C-alpha cells in the first residue's frame, strides 16, 4: 500500500487529517474517551459557548427524521468563564491537537466578550463564530441571515481576536454567497458551513409538534447534498478557506466534500449515532483515496461547474 498524505492546513493551523467533530455533537470531548483516543482527530470543535451559562430549551429537544435528526438544544453550555477555566484545560489533558472554540451570542457585545475571554486561551487554535444557531430567539441565526449584520459581527470579533476567525454560516438563507462574501470582505479568515436546516416533525397521535420548541435544526445524511451545494457555491465566490459540514458520514463523503471545495470537514450527527464514526472514517480514508488515485488530500481541487 502506498503512502497517503492526510494533512491539511487551515489559516496556518496544521491538521494531521481533515476530520473535525462538529460543535454540539462532541461536548468537550470527555464523552468519547471510553470509545477512542481523541488524538487521532484532525481538530475538535467544542460545544457552542455563550457569555453566560445557558440551560437551553425545554425538552423534547430531539426528533428523528428518515435520514437524520432535528435538535432544538438551544445552546446549553456552562458559559465562557467555565469553558476557559474548566472545560478547555480538561480537554487539553487528554488531547494535544488543535481546538476550535465555537462562540455564540445574543448581541454584538456578547460575541466580543466571549471572544475576549477565549481568544487568549493557549488551547484555542481557531475561533468559530456561530452566527447560525436556529434554536434561539433574538440573535444566533438573526446575525447569519443578513449580510450587514454578519459583516458587523465579523468586524467586531476580528478587532479583539488573536486567533484565525471562521464565521459559521446558516443554510437558512436565500443567498448564502452574499453572507459569505460579506464575512470575507469584513476580514474573516475562513468560513464554516453549514449549520442545521430549520425543520419540524409532528406527533400524529397527539397532533402536536414533537419538539417543545416546535422547530429545530435538521442534520445528518439528509442534508449532505444541500451542504455540498452551498460549500461549492461559496468556495466559488470567496478565496478564504472553508470547513465543510452537513451530513458527512463516510470517508467517501469526506472526499466529496473536499471536491466541493472544503479544506477540512466536520462530522456532526454521525458521532451521536455512532461514537466510533470519526475513527472509522479515518481508517477508511486512505483506501478510498487510493481507489480514486488521490495521494494527498491537500491536492484535491474543487470540481468545476458543468
Amino acid at each position: 500500500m502506498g503512502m497517503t498524505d492526510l494533512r491539511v492546513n487551515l489559516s496556518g493551523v496544521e491538521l494531521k487529517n481533515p476530520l473535525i467533530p462538529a460543535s454540539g455533537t462532541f461536548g468537550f470531548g470527555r464523552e468519547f474517551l471510553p470509545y477512542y483516543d481523541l488524538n487521532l482527530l484532525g481538530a475538535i470543535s467544542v460545544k457552542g459557548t455563550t457569555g453566560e451559562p445557558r440551560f437551553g430549551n425545554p425538552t423534547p429537544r430531539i426528533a428523528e427524521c428518515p435520514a437524520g435528526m432535528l435538535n432544538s438544544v438551544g445552546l446549553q453550555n456552562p458559559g465562557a468563564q467555565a469553558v476557559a477555566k474548566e472545560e478547555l484545560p480538561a480537554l487539553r489533558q487528554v488531547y494535544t491537537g488543535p481546538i476550535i472554540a465555537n462562540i455564540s451570542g445574543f448581541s454584538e457585545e456578547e460575541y466580543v466578550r466571549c471572544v475576549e475571554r477565549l481568544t487568549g486561551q493557549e488551547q484555542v487554535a481557531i475561533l468559530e463564530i456561530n452566527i447560525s444557531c436556529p434554536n434561539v430567539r433574538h440573535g444566533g441565526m438573526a446575525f447569519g441571515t443578513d449580510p450587514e449584520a454578519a459583516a458587523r459581527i465579523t468586524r467586531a470579533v476580528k478587532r479583539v481576536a488573536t486567533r484565525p476567525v471562521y464565521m459559521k454560516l446558516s443554510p437558512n438563507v436565500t443567498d448564502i454567497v452574499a453572507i459569505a462574501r460579506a464575512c470575507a470582505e469584513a476580514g474573516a479568515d475562513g468560513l464554516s458551513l453549514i449549520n442545521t436546516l430549520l425543520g419540524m416533525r409532528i406527533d400524529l397521535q397527539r397532533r402536536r409538534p414533537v419538539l417543545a420548541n416546535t422547530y429545530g435544526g435538521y442534520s445528518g445524511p439528509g442534508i449532505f447534498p444541500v451542504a455540498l451545494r452551498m460549500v461549492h457555491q461559496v468556495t466559488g465566490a470567496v478565496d478564504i478557506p472553508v470547513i465543510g459540514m452537513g451530513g458527512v458520514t463516510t470517508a467517501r463523503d469526506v472526499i466529496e466534500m473536499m471536491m466541493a471545495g472544503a479544506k477540512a470537514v466536520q462530522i456532526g450527527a454521525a458521532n451521536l449515532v455512532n461514537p466510533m464514526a470519526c475513527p472509522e472514517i479515518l481508517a477508511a480514508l486512505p483506501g478510498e483515496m487510493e481507489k480514486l488515485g488521490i495521494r494527498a488530500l491537500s491536492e484535491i481541487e474543487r470540481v468545476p461547474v458543468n
Partner: protein
Amino acid sequence: MNYEITENRALTASVHSMRLRGDTGSLTRPGQFVQVALPDFYLRRPISVCEWDRESLRLVYKVVGQGTAAMAEMKPGACLDLLPGLGNGFDTGACGEKPLLVGGGVGLPPLLGLCRALLAQGKKPLVLAGFGTAAEAFLLEDFRALGVPVTVTTMDGSLGLRGLVTDALGDLDYDDVLACGPLPMLKALWRCTGGRGQYSLEERMGCGFGACMGCSVQTAAGSMRVCKEGPVFRGEVLPWA
C-alpha cells in the same frame, strides 16, 4: 457492539422480551440502559436492561412506534448493534433495607435486575406493579420466582387492587422507594412518599452517552443529562414540589 438475538417473544399483546448474547462487561448497575441501533432508523432506541449475566442480557420493551415494532419482528439468530452500559443505574448501596420497587407498565423491566441485586446484598425488597388491565400485566412470575412480595394494581381492577400504585402504598411496609414508570406516576409517588427515594426518568435522546445535551433536565442540583447523570435521580433533587 454486536449482539446476537437468542430469543424474542411476546409477553402480552404489545410487550416483548428479547434476549441477546454478547459482551456485558460494561454493565455495572441495574437501571442502566442500552442504545439499540435499528436498520432503517437513524436514531438509536434507549431500552433499559431488564436483567443480565456474564454473556447475555434481556430487554423487555413495549411496541409504541415504528422502531419498537421493527424490533418485535426480529428473529433469533439475527444481530443487533447496541451501545451497552449507559447511564448511572440505581444505587443499591445507598437505599434502605426494605425498599419498595415501584414499576408502572414498561417501567417494570429494570426493577427485575434491581430486585436480584438487592437480594444479593441481603436486602428485603418488595414490589409494587401497576398496569392498565390484567391483560397488560407481565413479568410478575419473574418477580415471584425471586420470592419477593408482589402487589399489583390495575386501573380497571381486573387484577389485584383497583386504582393507581399510589392507592396501594398505605398497606405496605417499606423504608425506601425505587421507581420507574410514566412521569405522572413518578410525580404522584414522589409526593405521596415525601420526595425521597430514587426515580428513573425518560427523555428523548440524540446520543445516549452525554454528547448532545438533548436530554437535559433541570434539577435542584443543577442541569443534568438523563442519559449520563441519570436516568436514575435521587428524589431530593427532583424539581417536582
